[in-house]
């Protein structure tokens, strides 16, 4: 498996020793070299092995071909010098045209690498270094595997491309519907529900179900793809917001007074009176938290798995009616009337950050799925996109004629803004780029002013709730084309859902882990560490880890003069400096001589015979005998290892197993 990215690294000469110390990984293409060293002819045994491997090889070739067909950018990292015509010949005489493991694109591998190698580490001991190497090797391996598995993401995102000079914004829904296939065309529909006022809507995490609640109490949930209605009730109370909980089976509705939870039959399960006058709802799926923003100015986190209120935070900014979550780190963004957006976590009583975004109040906030960009719109009729990666500065600004009242990001980074009865959609260059506000990607006019917006996950569909009902628009390139069947499967059965629910509950993330940097867990608590160190030093009375400064030995005959002392000290200092620099420069492990003695023992042997007392000729004889024995042992070991490795060592073949 180590084939593809390994050659990129230059193996330093000193590393050989280290490798030999460990068990040497055997490659199947190295078969030739070892036998020649052994003095054995590369004839029959090789053939034998080949015969054994043959069926697997074929399989290999087959899959490789498949991989060739897929049009992923492939970067051959290494010329295939291991091509061995002899070994590739099968019984039938057919040759494997693509021997060896499939090459992997470096960029794709990079995508999965998580170790930040930009930071230079302080010089470390050999042991530490070996651990670091192991960690890096593991990362590489896993990322290569992940990159290989990208092959399975067969779907590609859609897009809309105007003919030369044509503005895509001029393409109306009818044109799109005409152009796409019937299944997709069926995804564009309008629900004319003029009776019960403007609608809020929410798609379930799988993107299969849709729930909507009208201002005048109309609540309904349906499988919007098949248009099968799950439930439809009137709660006889104003509905402010509606949201699915972790699955489509549960539904939270923010009603005029309290928060209610219904199941997919429309049966009221709970009435949560501690959350009153809720205006907005947001569900954090990995933490099983339902965040509610209320008129009273409280942000309440309700753990829906145990039914407890985790935290009730007073935002101290008056009525809260602008809320969105950051899907990357589960931080809640609240927009306030004084133009600020505050970021909240249940673990902290104060906001994690406060950003002044607009001169007037904030009307809408949305955060994209990567947690990089935040779009805000304010009463100053401006739409701004902020960078959330530490700087919190606006990247682009646009003044809209009436200002946007609602904002939403799609999974692939499209931004939609609802302005009155018009919906504008902006697209960026790629997935990781912010939407460029120069030219709208699509526009659409609705039959009433917009009241709720959401892109459907895993579908190129935008759901718009307005005073005239619900509109499902087709927005090519909005949704993520490939879904994770284990995570959120739109086609899952009830059983699968139940299974998933249990697993998700088991993997529930504690609420207090929500912070701005979700990778904080992979960091050491430095403050506690320092504190502990200090306490230890106090307890012991000295620093056990402190390196004592070099003290030159006193010498006789005037060699202990101050000048010479200084010189000696300087020498040591320089030496250390040089070594430091060397390792810093190379970033390679420091060589540790495995054997300091000068005896002619093989470096591969782990213990050296010269440790034994050398007293007489008998000993010498014995020594030589031992040496011989050892050499024999080694050879045998080599052979054995080879035999073993062909079977046990992971090679290019283990790709088929997973």
């Amino acid at each position, binding site marked *: 498996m180590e084939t593809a990215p390994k050659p990129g690294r230059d193996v330093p000469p000193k590393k050989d020793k280290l490798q030999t110390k460990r068990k040497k990984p055997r490659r199947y293409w190295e078969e030739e070299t070892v036998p020649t060293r052994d003095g054995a002819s590369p004839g029959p045994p090789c053939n034998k092995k080949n015969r054994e491997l043959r069926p697997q090889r074929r399989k290999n070739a087959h899959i490789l071909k498949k991989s060739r067909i897929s049009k992923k950018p492939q970067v051959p990292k290494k010329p295939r010098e291991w091509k061995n015509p002899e070994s590739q010949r099968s019984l039938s005489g057919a040759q494997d045209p693509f021997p060896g493991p499939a090459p992997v694109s470096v960029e794709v591998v990079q995508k999965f690498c998580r170790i930040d190698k930009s930071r230079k580490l302080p010089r470390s001991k050999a042991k530490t270094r070996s651990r670091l190497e192991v960690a890096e090797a593991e990362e590489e391996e896993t990322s290569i595997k992940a990159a290989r598995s990208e092959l399975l993401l067969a779907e590609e995102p859609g897009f809309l491309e105007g003919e030369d000079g044509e503005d895509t914004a001029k393409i109306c829904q009818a044109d799109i519907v005409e152009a796409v296939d019937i299944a997709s065309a069926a995804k564009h529909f309008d629900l004319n529900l003029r009776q019960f006022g403007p609608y809020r809507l929410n798609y379930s995490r799988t993107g299969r179900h849709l729930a909507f609640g009208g201002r005048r109490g109309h609540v309904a949930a349906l499988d919007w793809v098949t248009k099968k209605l799950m439930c439809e009730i009137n709660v006889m109370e104003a509905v402010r917001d509606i949201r699915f909980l972790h699955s489509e089976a549960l539904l939270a509705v923010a009603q005029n007074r309290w928060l209610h939870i219904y199941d997919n039959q429309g049966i009221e399960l709970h009435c949560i009176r501690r959350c009153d006058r809720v205006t907005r709802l947001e569900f954090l799926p990995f933490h099983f938290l339902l965040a509610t923003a209320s008129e009273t100015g409280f942000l309440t986190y309700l753990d829906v798995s145990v039914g407890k209120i985790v935290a009730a935070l007073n935002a101290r900014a008056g009525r809260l009616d602008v809320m969105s979550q950051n899907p990357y780190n589960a931080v809640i963004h609240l927009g306030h009337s004084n133009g600020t957006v505050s970021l909240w976590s249940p673990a902290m009583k104060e906001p994690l950050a406060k950003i002044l975004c607009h001169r007037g109040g904030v009307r809408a906030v949305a955060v994209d799925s990567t947690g990089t960009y935040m779009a805000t719109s304010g009463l100053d009729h401006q739409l701004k996109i902020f960078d959330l990666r530490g700087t919190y500065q606006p990247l682009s600004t646009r003044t809209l*004629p009436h200002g946007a009242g609602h904002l939403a990001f799609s999974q692939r980074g499209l931004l939609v803004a609802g302005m009155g009865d018009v919906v504008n959609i902006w697209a960026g260059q790629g997935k990781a780029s912010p939407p460029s506000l120069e030219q709208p990607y699509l526009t659409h006019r609705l039959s009433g002013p917009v009241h709720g917006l959401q892109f459907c996950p895993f579908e190129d569909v935008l759901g718009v709730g307005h005073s005239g009902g619900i509109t499902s628009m087709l927005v090519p390139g909005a949704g993520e084309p490939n879904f994770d069947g284990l995570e959120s499967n739109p086609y899952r059965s009830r059983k699968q859902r139940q299974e998933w629910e249990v697993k998700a509950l088991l993997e529930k993330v504690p609420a207090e882990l929500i912070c701005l940097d979700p990778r904080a867990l992979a960091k050491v608590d430095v403050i506690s560490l320092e504190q502990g160190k200090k306490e230890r030093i106090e307890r012991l009375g000295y620093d056990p880890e402190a390196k004592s400064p070099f003290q030159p030995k006193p010498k006789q005959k005037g060699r202990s003069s101050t000048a010479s002392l200084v010189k000696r000290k300087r020498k040591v200092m320089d030496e250390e400096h040089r070594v430091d620099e060397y390792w810093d420069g190379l970033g390679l492990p420091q060589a540790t001589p495995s054997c300091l003695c000068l005896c002619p023992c093989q470096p591969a042997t782990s213990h050296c015979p010269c440790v034994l007392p050398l007293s007489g000729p008998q000993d010498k004889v014995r020594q030589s005998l031992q040496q011989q024995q050892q050499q024999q042992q080694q050879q045998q070991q080599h052979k054995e290892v080879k035999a073993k490795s062909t079977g046990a060592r992971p090679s290019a073949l283990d790709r088929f197993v*997973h």
Partner: protein
Amino acid sequence: MTANRLAESLLALSQQDELVDLPKDCLLSGSEDEGDNDGEREHQKLLEAISSLDGKNRRKLAERSEASLKVSEFNVSSEGSGEKLVLADLLEPVKTSSSLATVKKQLNRVKSKKTVELPLNKEEIERARTPLEQEIFNLLHKNKQPVADPLLTPVEKASLQAMSLEEAKMRRAELQRARALQSYYEAKARREKKIKSKKYHKVVKKGKAKKALKEFEQLQKVNPAAALEELEKIEKARMMERMSLKHQNSGKWAKSKAIMAKYDLEARQAMQEQLAKNKELTQKLQVASESEEEEGGTEEVEELLVPDVVNEVQMNADGPNPWMLRSCTSDTKEAATQEDPEQLPEPEAHEVSESEGEERPVAEEEILLREFEERRSLRKRSELSQDAEPARSQETKDSSSQEVLSELRVLAQKLKENDQSRKQKASSKGTIPQVQREEPAPEEEEPLLLQRPERVQTLEELEELGKECFQNKELPRPVLEGQQSERTPNNRPDAPKEKKKKEQMIDLQNLLTTQSPSVKSLAVPTIEELEDEEERNQRQMIKEAFAGDDVIRDFLKEKREAVEASKPKDVDLTLPGWGEWGGVGLKPSAKKRRRFLIKAPEGPPRKDKNLTNVIINEKRNIHTAAHQVRVLPYPFTHHWQFERTIQTPIGSTWNTQRAFQKLTTPKVVTKPGHIINPIKAEDVGYRSSSRSDLSVIQRNPKRITTRHKKQLKKSSVD
């Protein structure tokens, strides 16, 4: 009789040029405009004289036809008439009212009649019998000094009349200030001069020379003509230095010779030779100074030397003054041509730079400032003429002249650089407003520095003084205006494209008020909305109306509070009443408080230090910290190392199934149901007996310890 008068007037006219009256010389009108239209004016005078022959309007003042330099009531030039201007003339009303005429006459009569004859006065004049006394009296009289009592001079009297008390006070304050500045400067110079270290001086001198050389090279590239003059100056300085220092008996060689001279004839001769040479050289210098051309130059040098460096700064300081720079008109050119040729280089340099100046300031300011300049030059000249006779032979050049020269050069160079840089700035309009804003400051100071602590001597100067006060009031205003005009672009909302520097604090105003392009939406939203929306809309309207009035200030205040709150607090350990009297109303002394105040160490810089629009909470999240690793495991010495090993997630959520399995395989897997023998000593040592324990299978070869490996090897061998 008329013919006689005509002849007289003509005579007066011709004499006017030769008139060397001190105050007259100071008068700009007298000296400046003469060169140009001498002939023309004479012609006019002649015509006038002829026309006045009929005797009707003899005393009529000449009408001025040409545009004068100064059109102000303080600077009436008397060039047209043959008579001198008297203050009384000016103070008189234009028309004497007929009703008062009789009274006036009477008054005059009374005035002219002296009640008591003062014989004393006459006596005193008569008392001056010896020629010396007479001469002195003569001199005093000429200079209008009080002869009898130590009373006020007429000039002073006039000044008293001319100035109001406030003006005088102001003026005095200004002068005091200038004097103080000068004295500071002098003191500083003296202090520096007093430093005994030869090395220091050597270094300073060397540094100066080097700098001068560099600047000269630069100048050579930029302005060859000016460079040539500079070169001349340098040459002159070198010559002077050579003449002053060398060929005297102060050198090392000379000293040694002086000792030898007593005994050695040769040495004596050499010394004499040297002295002769010295004399010769110095003589040559004197000869040179007598000649007309050299005079001005040396004078100038002296003039630069004799007063202090403040003056020099003044001289050059008009460079950075943008007003002075731009006020290049033909008038200044005229003035420049009339000035001594030695004074030219700088104005010329200005002109070079000035000709490039694009905009012209308002005419009024220009005139004002030009006058200012003229006055200064006048004063300088008057000083020159005053000092000229005594100073001619008095001062020999000392080593400091070189320094001064070099400094001069340095300053000139700086000025030029300033000009260039300003021009560059002007071309890159308003990119760096701060720098531009800095410059008016010296400009403000200058007028004060320009005024030298000096007595007003003539009437015109007096008048100028009055004007000066007036100008001093005037001047700051344009500066302020300039500042404002410079500030306004700063406040002006910038285009979003304008890139900010990273270090620069982000301007909140800019951030929030950026003019962003508005979207030309294809579908403009229709305004009509439902009823329930209307209520909300109204609220929104109100909000919009009051939007952004105090948002920024509130936010900044909040941020300031947050910053204050997050700062580590100082610990105050003072015990009131300990070691001193205590009680109500008694506070521990400042010294004590200072002593017992433990200052908290300054924390790390805030994350939002440079982000004005953000408040980031710096509080530690204890709940998250509880889940973090707080002890470094064994082989790691730094937390970075350990962090690197735990950065890759192991869970199946982030990994492929295969990778997940591989990452989570246990080090040792045992076969269920197999007996595992306890470890024996042989197992631990190297010599193990047969050990066919198949229950333990190594799965993860990377994690095999060396000992395991050895054992494995052993067992396989066996």
